[in-house]
């Protein structure tokens, strides 16, 4: 634990393109920024043996995920000269084609923004206690496995 306030990353349902636009727009006042890197995770309509995925329902161990995200955030801030870092992840139901993960880093130069964003995405996928349950068109479901 540390002295910093724990930031929330979770949003209910899909992340809208409007929210992403607003987040980008809000950085126009930060005039020391030269590059933004963004990663968006989109729910895939995978066709599994058991059927076609139409939705993923996300659950998380929220308290642990936020504590872990705080550690990741501090690691990445100390490794790269970033102006900003924003992370949002969906909870609950997200339809195929909708956005479930939004990672946004900004820096004076492009390289730290790009590298930090890529590293954040990997760590979020590997280290945050979040689970996706794939809802199939035939009303069956199965638990997602990350590769």
């Amino acid at each position, binding site marked *: 634990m540390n002295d910093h306030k724990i930031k929330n990353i979770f949003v209910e349902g899909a992340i809208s393109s409007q929210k992403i636009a607003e987040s980008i727009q809000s950085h126009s006042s930060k005039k020391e920024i030269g590059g933004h890197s963004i990663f968006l995770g989109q729910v895939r309509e995978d066709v599994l043996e058991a059927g076609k995925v139409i939705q993923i329902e996300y659950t998380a161990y929220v308290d642990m995920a936020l504590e872990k995200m705080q550690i990741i955030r501090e690691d990445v801030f100390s490794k790269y000269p970033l102006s900003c870092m924003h992370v949002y992840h969906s909870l609950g139901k997200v339809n195929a084609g909708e956005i479930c993960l939004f990672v946004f880093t900004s820096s004076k130069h492009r390289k730290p923004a790009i590298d930090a964003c890529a590293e954040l995405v990997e760590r979020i996928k590997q280290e945050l206690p979040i689970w996706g349950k794939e809802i199939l068109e035939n009303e069956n479901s199965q*638990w997602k496995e990350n590769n």
Partner: protein
Amino acid sequence: MEQALIRLMCFGMLEEITGFKERQLIGKQDTDQFRIWLNDEFPELQKIDFVIAVNRKLINQNTVLKNEDEVALLPPFSGG
């Protein structure tokens, strides 16, 4: 000696297997004792890949359990 009362939580597919999301559990001194109880109570968990977190930190060795500790069973993560 007072017995530790822990808060036991299950996530993802483990909630479906055990049939509970959260319950209280008493009398387990450490995570090794806890694992023995878990295997007795839910033998089907032996086929499942999962890790244990105590107070929101993953553990990889036997850990003493204190009163009000939060013990969570976590299947492989699949966020993003």
